[in-house]
């Protein structure tokens, strides 16, 4: 050992290991691993959690080799814009190779979280059989598996604590997969099956719930009938997080009072989510638990604002509210006056394509919440009109914002009063909210807003841009500024080659860049790929693939995905995704 590091030997390895266990972030652990060979060894052998933000950034086998004692792994696949159909079906993100390497190298793995990946039933079967101590399986925005795969998880994972399925596309070919949990199985703490469409056998579900006394989170799917819900709730009065699915049904008074009583028994409930169809009729049944709620997710609800306002005004301890724009300005004014502890607001469009009656949700709603809820730090807001002065006021009211995502539904919409671009408004947000980590911009925007973002958004990690900017300078401002930028996704902007090539090094400091319907040419991609061997520059050709070499430099690239990697070009790309 180098004499300069002889102090390392002053303590046994276990002491260093214990010290490292207090390091909160992977970045800290990575730094520690660079100090000396001993620390590198001790750190890698003691790392228990791994986060892979892009499954193609590293070879699975290499990751497993480097950190042989991992117990919890989180892996993400497709780019974020895949959620909106901007990538192509069969783009990639397969979990197979990861699962195979993990099954070999991490037999003691306890927790697996996958997001935006393609997970086959085989994967689930291999995981269920290989990981003897499997405790947590979380699949978010994944696809490729069926309820038969879930059945093998249920049958084989004797000590499973959490099965968390969030917004997946699941083929439902095994109706009673829930019955594959053996009678001896009692360890469930979290069961989230909200994304499944099929009917559940309620009596099997009831028996499962009854024998799992530690069950804290139960999110049912939307076809659970109302009458059966009452029975389920009575079996799990200890629930902290409940998702109830659709409340369809004709009103019969007996049912209402049973529901009311079932809810009243949930003394520990903090989170409530669900789809409410017969809302106005059954809504008062939940009044008794409103005061204890810290999170309310009604993002698929069709309840209108007078009823909704009555609910939110009772939720004095609410920290997180997700709702449809049916809540309208009036509902948000009620939120502003009642929910003083609110930290996160998400408002989704009930009618994204503007085919129905207009909804009275404007900038006033968000303004009211920003003014009444001083702890507000995260906003997602879909609306149809905005002004610079409202944005300035919001920025002044909420300097602690860490996440601000505003989507004005119609592209290129200006400040509706002054007709000016919204540069000044978004500029105020980035200048006054110094801790901003995530930003989505929309409306009519010129290069000016990018100049401000590049200069002021020093903590920004993720930026989403659509239908904005005038010239390449816009992209250049972002790439040459924004010191902490990790993810950038852009669509339909006049950004092109020069900004990319002038900022090639920045791209390696980021996790990924997505650009679609911009002005990038194949020639620039070739130059970039040549200059930066540790970037994968992937071009998606919608016309079915073919030989990239034959295309001229000046041909337009419709979809571009660039990401840093130490694994080289990926081997599982379909024929229409070409690595330059």
């Amino acid at each position, binding site marked *: 050992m180098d004499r300069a590091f002889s102090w390392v030997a002053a303590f046994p390895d276990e002491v260093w290991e214990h010290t490292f266990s207090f390091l909160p972030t992977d970045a800290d652990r990575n730094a520690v691993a660079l100090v000396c060979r001993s620390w590198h060894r001790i750190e890698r052998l003691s790392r228990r959690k791994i986060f892979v933000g892009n499954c193609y950034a590293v070879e699975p086998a290499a990751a497993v080799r480097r950190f042989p004692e991992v117990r919890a792994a989180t892996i993400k696949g497709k780019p974020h814009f895949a959620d*909106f159909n901007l990538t192509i079906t069969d783009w990639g993100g397969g979990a197979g190779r990861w699962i195979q390497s993990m099954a070999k190298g991490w037999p003691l793995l306890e927790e697996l979280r996958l997001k935006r990946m393609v997970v086959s039933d085989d994967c689930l079967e291999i995981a269920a059989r290989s990981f003897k101590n499997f405790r947590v399986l979380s699949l978010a925005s994944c696809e490729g598996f069926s309820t038969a795969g879930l059945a093998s998880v249920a049958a084989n994972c004797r000590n499973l604590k959490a099965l968390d399925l969030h917004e997946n596309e699941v083929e439902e070919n095994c109706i009673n997969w829930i019955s594959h949990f053996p009678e001896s199985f009692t360890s469930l703490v979290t069961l989230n099956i909200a994304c499944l469409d099929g009917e559940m056998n309620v009596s099997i579900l009831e028996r499962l719930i009854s024998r799992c006394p530690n069950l804290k989170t139960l999110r049912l799917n939307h076809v659970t009938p109302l009458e059966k819900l009452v029975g389920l709730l009575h079996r799990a009065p200890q629930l902290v997080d409940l998702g109830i699915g659709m409340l369809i049904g004709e009103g019969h008074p007996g049912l209402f009072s049973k529901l009311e009583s079932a809810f009243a028994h949930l003394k520990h409930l903090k989170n409530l989510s669900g789809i409410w169809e017969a809302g106005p009729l059954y809504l008062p049944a939940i009044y008794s638990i409103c005061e204890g709620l810290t999170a309310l997710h009604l993002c698929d609800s069709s309840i209108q604002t007078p009823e909704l306002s009555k609910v939110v005004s009772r939720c004095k301890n609410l920290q997180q509210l997700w709702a449809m724009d049916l809540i309208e300005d009036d509902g948000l004014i009620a939120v502003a006056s009642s929910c003083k502890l609110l930290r996160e607001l998400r408002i989704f469009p009930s009618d994204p394509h*503007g085919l129905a009656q207009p909804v009275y949700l404007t900038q006033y709603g968000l303004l009211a919440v920003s003014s009444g809820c001083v702890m507000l730090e995260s906003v997602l807001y879909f609306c149809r009109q905005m002004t610079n002065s409202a944005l300035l006021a919001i920025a002044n009211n909420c300097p602690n914002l860490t996440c601000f995502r505003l989507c004005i539904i119609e592209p290129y919409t200006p400040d509706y009063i002054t007709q000016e671009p919204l540069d000044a408004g978004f500029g105020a947000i980035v200048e006054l909210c110094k801790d901003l980590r995530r930003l989505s911009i929309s409306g*009519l925007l010129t290069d000016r807003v990018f100049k401000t973002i590049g200069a002021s958004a020093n903590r920004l990690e993720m930026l989403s841009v659509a239908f904005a900017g005038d010239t390449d300078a816009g992209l250049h401002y972002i790439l040459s500024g924004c010191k902490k930028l990790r993810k950038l996704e852009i669509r*339909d902007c*006049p950004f092109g080659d020069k900004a990319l090539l002038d900022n090639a090094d920045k791209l390696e400091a980021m996790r990924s860049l997505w650009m679609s319907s911009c002005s990038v040419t194949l020639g620039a991609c070739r130059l970039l790929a040549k200059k930066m061997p540790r970037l994968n520059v992937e071009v998606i050709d919608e016309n079915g693939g073919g030989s990239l070499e034959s295309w001229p430099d000046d041909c337009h690239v419709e979809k571009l995905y660039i990401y840093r990697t130490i694994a080289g070009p990926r081997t599982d790309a379909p024929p229409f995704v070409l690595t330059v």
Partner: protein
Amino acid sequence: MSTTETAHSSTESDASGLDYEETQLTLAPPGASRSDPERKRGLSDDHLPSDSSQGPSGKPPQSKAQVVGWPPVRSSRRNALKSCTYVKVAVDGAPYLRKVDLEAYAGYQQLLTALEEMFSCFTARNYPNERRLVDPVSGAEYVPTYEDKDGDWMLVGDVPWKMFVASCKRLRLMKISEAANLAPRAPQGCTKEQ
């Protein structure tokens, strides 16, 4: 709202956008965006991004009603209030699938136009009672077909639009030679949109 940049008739795409709004009786509040002249701005205005250069993947910019992936809401969420009407579209001989949301279109003509744009090598050709898509390179003709709830493959256009949306499980642009095996058309050859 017509643009000169779109290759197809923009009045079709307006059917689910502006024209529909104009014929609807609503009480719009003052200053609401719906009746704003600004609402009529779209991709046809000066701020259209300069992606009109053509290349192997060059296509005409999409019209207002059919911008893919906008607004950025997940399809599962968008369709939460109605049944999910996303279906996969396959083309004989092409290695990839697309997905379309049938509820986004007002009728067969719009759907066909969208398919034509999506698989941009095709041009639509309208026969008196039928629709075909032609690949200009090979001259091969394709007929749009669909699999219904009973698992049968039918020609697109035979039943009223709403019935089609309710029963269609997936779409396939079938080569004309294979389409001969399909169930014979209904006698009235109804192609009226509803």
